[in-house]
């Protein structure tokens, strides 16, 4: 640690660090500019889209994607992927509904229990990837099936009485409450964004994450505990998916089956259009955050214009491809 501090104190070290992060931050900046552009264009097409309340609505909806994308960013940074997101999220919402049964006093232990469930599932993913050498795609896909089976079996296809109990008041407040006019869920997201950014950019752990993503073998040889970092990152992804599940349940009022499905591809898309390199090692969470806002703004705009389902899907895919073509291209091979 003291060596790091020495390097940073020395001017050259700072320059090196800055150079290293510049492209990632630049892509995040492009992302926010693109998001702002969509709001400006959207306001022409649909007056009021970029008004205070319009922006607030989009940001609230984007915050669920952004939370899941935070976990996805963690694992993509080491060249992994988390396909278990949909049913970890859905399972968390159902578990909270059943254990809290709409009561605030029960929520006091039900929420930590739900978060722990997400963390444990994520850690199991990580253990499979790191120690059993199961490809991340297969491990997390299998875990998604496990969580889907458990959730569906446990609720009997959502026939149980407590499955559809209303979100506890405290969860409702965590989404809809506001501090100085700012929705509470955005404050939670802001906190997550600050923590994730600090962890990735300014801690040894963060440096190790980028190190593994760039060259796993070199990281291992230079003493990084690759397996432990991997397990932890998948754990964090599970924890964040569960967090999103809890908040989404508060937003919708209750848990529903299939509520997590859109978040798989959206979380990956948010990360990559925000400049997180899919093979790992490069990217910044602020980019994923911008990506989540871009995607949500486009979907909201299409919804506001009553665009039919098929049109929304095509526009969505086309926008992802266009953004990637603008700045997601690889170096030309010689």
């Amino acid at each position: 640690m003291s060596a790091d501090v020495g390097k940073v104190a020395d001017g050259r070290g700072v320059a090196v660090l800055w150079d290293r992060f510049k492209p990632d931050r630049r892509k995040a900046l492009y992302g926010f500019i693109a998001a702002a552009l969509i709001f400006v264009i959207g306001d022409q097409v649909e007056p009021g889209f970029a008004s205070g309340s319009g922006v607030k609505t989009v940001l609230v909806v984007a915050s669920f994607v952004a939370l899941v994308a935070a976990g996805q960013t963690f694992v993509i940074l080491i060249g992994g992927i988390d396909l278990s997101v949909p049913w970890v999220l859905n399972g968390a919402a159902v578990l909270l509904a059943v254990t809290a049964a709409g009561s605030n006093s029960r929520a006091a232990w039900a929420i930590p229990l739900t978060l722990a469930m997400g963390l444990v599932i994520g850690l199991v993913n990580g253990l499979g990837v790191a120690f059993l050498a199961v490809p991340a795609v297969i491990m997390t896909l299998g875990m998604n099936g496990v969580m889907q089976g458990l959730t569906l079996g446990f609720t009997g296809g959502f026939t149980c009485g407590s499955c559809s109990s209303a979100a506890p008041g405290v969860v409702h407040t965590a989404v809809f409450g506001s501090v100085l006019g700012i929705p509470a869920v955005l404050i939670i997201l802001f906190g997550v964004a600050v923590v994730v950014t600090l962890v990735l950019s300014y801690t040894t752990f963060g440096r190790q994450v980028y190190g593994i993503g760039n060259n796993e073998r070199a990281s291992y040889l230079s003493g990084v505990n690759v397996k432990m970092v991997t397990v932890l990152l998948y754990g964090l992804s599970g924890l964040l998916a569960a967090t999103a599940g809890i908040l989404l349940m508060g937003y919708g009022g209750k848990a529903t089956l299939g509520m997590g499905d859109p978040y798989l591809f959206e979380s990956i898309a948010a990360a990559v259009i925000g400049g997180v390199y899919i093979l790992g090692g490069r990217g910044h969470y602020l980019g994923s955050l911008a990506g989540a806002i871009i995607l949500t703004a486009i979907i909201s705009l299409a919804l506001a214009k009553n665009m039919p389902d098929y049109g929304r899907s095509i526009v969505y895919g086309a926008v992802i491809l266009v953004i990637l073509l603008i700045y997601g291209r690889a170096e030309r091979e010689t």
Partner: protein
Amino acid sequence: MTGIPAIQQRRRRSPAAHGLSQNAPLLLGVGLLVLMVAIYLGLYGNQIGRLPGNFELTSTADNALPLVFAALGQSLVILTGGIDLSVGGVMDLTNSVSALEMHGSTGHMLLWAVIIVLIGAGAGLFNGLLIAFGRLQPILVTLGSLAIFQGLALKVLPQPGGQVASGVTSTLANPREPTAFVVIAVGLLLWWLLRRSSLGIGIYAIGNDRQAARANGVPVTRVVLATYTISGAFVGFAGLLLAAQTTGGDPTAGDVFTLISIAAAVIGGVSLTGGRGSAAGAVVGAFVLTVLVNVLFFGHVDPLEEPLYEGLFLVVAAALTALAGLLLRRRLR
């Protein structure tokens, strides 16, 4: 520099040992299939009082058909080191078109069967062009094009419906005749021809080491375009087979095939890092997953809990494959 001679040393081993370690994942897939079939036979014999006959055999093959072709297409892409997330979208699209057009005169249906395969090929070419000339990662291109193909499917067939002529079903997936085996054999034959062409060599070369392939004169761009196009044709046909099997169309029925086609390929020993695997593996993987569904049915597993056992099976199978490959490589080193 000291690491390089060590690596070369390690790779030097007898051809037989090399072949065994190369095919170990496929052999494991076959082992899993044998195990699954044995469990299925045991459960079936125990509950029905006789062993499954030709009808059960052909229906299993019928059920496996769409996944077999989706996995064949997926494995081609995986062999180049890519991955295709748009498989489900392409199948949605061709499944929907099939439901609208696969009836009427034989000539009409044959024409549309060709068009449907071409739609698949065109979708694959679209992916390939973006990957080759857009210099984008396959997973990202197909993530975007998945939404586009899904949208097109919804445009073609807004809700489940349509009708596939019974002749189509009896030609492709007839439970009373072993037609499915003929279709699968044709698919394997096509793949075998491809494997032996210079294109096939290029696919494996790119999957193993793209730079080396380029340096050795493999026309990388052309091979990538051809691979995605051919893969798309296989997947497009899988959508038609799905329509034949279900005798109707559903613009979202193909979605599940994106991920299970990857799972089938991996269970059959196709390496996700590219360059290793075979069509036989993809077919074996597809059958393992299909027989697993039968096993769960005769095991009286609550249909709602099926994903749980499928997920566990996937993880355990992949872990066994990874461990066995690791042990074998260590022993043969």
